[in-house]
């Protein structure tokens, strides 16, 4: 379908009214996806966006691609069935922190394990938006919400650690309002062959306003964000600080510059490291003790599930060119009655 050329952002905007709260971080994410798709020259008719349930999961309605607004937490299952049976399609999954990590946690980790060629955008606002503000599996301990008036008592998941533990081949993190970075991550995910997941820090101005403000606000940004760039030393705070691994393999924050740690000692980011332990180690860097990594944690290549299944099929077809209904029926002992 190479006929559609030079699509613009607005070509990806459907005629449906966007129904998120004014000010919601979802608007920017939608815009960046539309913009990136336009720039990537994504074919609308060969793209399918599948979501679960949640505010974020309204996403497919606002795109001009094929789409399915499915059921809560199960989007990866629909996407897997679709992708295995139609590997040529471009399949994206939209999910929230509740959708993907509460009810849908199992499907998420299995998608990672299988490495189905899906792109997953996880809108993490650390809250259940659609059901009006209960705490989610990524909410900070002690959070007071309508369902936890005394404060929640469970420890949050770190989505990046969870998917790395499950064997993810591409993991990135970005921020709703960081339009350029988010576009870059979307494009990187698109380019990856295998399951690609981007955790997107998203503000819910109604139920969890300032969800990530300590990391994303203008003043804190430089100190609090560690921009991961493949091959580049892990520097932040305008290059005055950096990350170094100590002898136990534990990353430490050090001051960089003359009389301090030299630039050479700063670890150079390598998103292609074979062991997931490296990315996992970075994922433990967290506010307030450390700067929060943003960017691609891991991007490695492994055969995809859909490819493997379809290669098996091709081999099976080639091995049995005579397969037809008649041979299907006439298996085993056959006898004739007159």
């Amino acid at each position, binding site marked *: *379908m190479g*006929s559609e050329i030079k699509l613009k952002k607005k070509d990806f905007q*459907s005629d*449906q009214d966007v129904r998120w709260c004014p000010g919601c971080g979802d608007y920017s994410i939608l815009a960046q996806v539309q913009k990136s798709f336009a720039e990537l020259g994504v074919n*609308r*008719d*060969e793209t*399918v966006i*599948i979501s679960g*349930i949640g505010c974020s999961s309204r996403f*497919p*309605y606002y*795109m*001009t*691609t*094929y*789409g*399915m*607004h*499915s*059921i809560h937490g*199960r989007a*990866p*299952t*629909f*996407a*897997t*069935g*679709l*992708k*295995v*049976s*139609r590997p*040529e*399609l471009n399949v994206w999954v939209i999910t929230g922190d509740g959708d993907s990590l509460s009810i849908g946690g*199992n*499907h998420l980790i*299995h998608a990672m394990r299988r490495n189905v060629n899906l792109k997953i955008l996880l809108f993490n606002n650390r809250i259940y938006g659609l059901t009006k503000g209960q705490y989610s599996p990524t909410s900070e301990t002690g959070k007071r919400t309508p369902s936890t008036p005394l404060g929640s008592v469970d420890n949050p998941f770190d989505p990046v650690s969870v998917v790395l533990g499950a064997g993810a081949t591409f993991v990135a993190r970005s921020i709703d309002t960081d339009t350029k970075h988010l576009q870059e991550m979307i494009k990187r995910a698109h380019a990856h062959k295998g399951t690609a997941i981007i955790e997107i820090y998203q503000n819910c101005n109604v139920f969890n306003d300032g969800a990530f403000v300590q990391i994303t606000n203008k003043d804190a940004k430089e100190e609090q964000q560690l921009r991961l760039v493949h091959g580049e030393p892990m520097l932040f705070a305008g290059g005055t600080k950096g990350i170094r691994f100590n002898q136990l393999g534990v990353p430490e924050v050090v001051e960089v510059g003359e009389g301090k740690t030299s630039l050479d000692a700063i670890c150079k980011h390598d998103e292609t490291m074979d062991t997931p332990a490296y990315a996992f180690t970075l994922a433990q860097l967290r506010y307030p003790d450390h700067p929060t990594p943003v960017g691609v944690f891991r991007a490695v290549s492994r055969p995809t599930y859909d490819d493997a*299944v379809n290669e*098996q*099929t091709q081999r*099976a*077809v080639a*091995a*049995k060119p005579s*397969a*037809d*209904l*008649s041979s*299907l*029926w*006439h*298996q*085993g*002992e*056959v*006898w*004739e*009655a*007159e």
Partner: protein
Amino acid sequence: MATSSTPTGQDMSATPRPIIEVDSVVIRFAGDSGDGMQLTGSEFTKASAVAGNDLSTLPDYPAEIRAPTGTLFGVSGFQLQFASHQVFTPGDQPDVLVAMNPAALKTNLPDLVTSGSLIVNTAAFTKPNLTKAKYESNPLEDGSLEGYQVFPVDVTGLTKECLKDSGLNAKSIDRCKNFFALGMTFWMFNRPIEPALKSINDKFRKKKPELADANIQVFKAGYHYGETAEIFTQSVQVKRAEIAPGKYRNIMGNSATAIGLVTGATLAELPLLYAGYPITPASTILHELSRYRAYGATTIQVEDEIAAAGAAIGASFGGSIGVTASSGPGVALKAEAMGLAVSLELPLVVVNVQRGGPSTGLPTKTEQSDLLQMLYGRNGESPVAVLSARTPGDCFDCAIEAVRIAVKYMTPVVLMTDGYLANGAEPWRIPKLSDIAPFPAKFRTDPENFFPYERDEKTLARPWVKPGTPGLAHRVGGLEKDALTGHVSYDPENHQKMCELRRDKILRIQQELGPIEVNGEHEGEVLVIGWGSTYGAITKSVNELREGGAKVSHVHLRWLNPLHPHPPQPQALRPTPWTARPARSRCGTVARSRSPGWDAT
């Protein structure tokens, strides 16, 4: 043996012997889980089929994978009825019981007909085995078997003797003993031995040639033992059944379902994606389908039943026929996804191979108690089409029909089978390609005036669009949607309309059903309405009663939603003063469907 026998003096083998001719025989092989009774049973089945008998089989596995040897709960059985007439069930009580050890005797003897034949492996009646089987004294010696025709044979010893020069170790030799028993029964019932020899050869030659030889040797030894040892004073003959001409094979229900699904997909010109999660007694559908890649079937084993339903629906969205199967507890997990498929109006086939419930229940036993779950087990008004198979071979036809209706009406279709059908077998007449008309699926490709929820006038189906089709990109979802555009709609009138449309669409399937088949008169004293695998049992009973002069008729429902339209002759159903509704469930679960015309049942 079920019917009267007439002794004849036919000469069937080298040695002349008296031959009794009977109409039908029920035989049960019983032994330890490790004794190979399932294999023995299916070899006997094949031979009987090839001999032209009609037949029906029922395996009975223990729930444990490998129960400790000699225990009562570790007994594995295989029952078979073969006859010179049409057979509807594997039979109630065996005429012949082969008991390979005391535990098998203990658990199976109560079922044997009075003065039935009993072949026992005497070598197994040791002290420890008797204790494990909770026998206080040896039944072979204490007179408790009086009244039966007992044939005590040292099967183990004779097998050992026969293989003493084979070079096999003791354990391997012991494992051949079932073929000795099989050989004896072949002689006893005059089965042709060539197919069995070929079959044993096929089974073992490749992997363990030494076992192929040993088993054949032992099998022949058993056969000749029957011939020469003169413990069987006569041989029994069951004539060919009069069956429709054609090619036949034996088929188990789950195999029939599997090849029916592939056949349906092929006739619809669709790829098939089967997504499954193992569960007894549905797993073998997954196993069998996973061998049919070359036939257009892709199978994936996923993390749970929800994922299986989701993947199947995703595939259907992509233009394949999505299929999933499970048993009760697993199907329960699919409810929410099935509701989505109802709302999306996509084709989907869900097979429920029922087993005993509630909860984990009796995983290895059969039951027909999930019907209401399939009809009603979803939130909201969420109608799906439901049909049921009646015999192992019928699973083939029903699976094709399920695919056809799912695609034609853009709806989930539930196919009900059960453990009895799944593992039971019968001779199956292999169709000819020309017997079955293809029903190619139609996909919308025209972008002009496209509305995702516009309906076909005749079927009320919405158009099916393959993602990738230019100009037809659209979004669907589980929220209520506008009856034409498919956009989200909270309008109550539209919702009313959509609920009615979804209901009516299922009702339209009635137009696919021919006149209702009645076994017996359209007017009578008693009408028996059944569904599913009770077919055989009801047919047998009704036929017997009718032969006795009773005015009993039988209607067996294939479709449970919708029910058959108003029967053409209403008197067929209405004026029967008494209606029985048997089902293989404990408390008489009965179809309560909302199709008009059936309220009175």
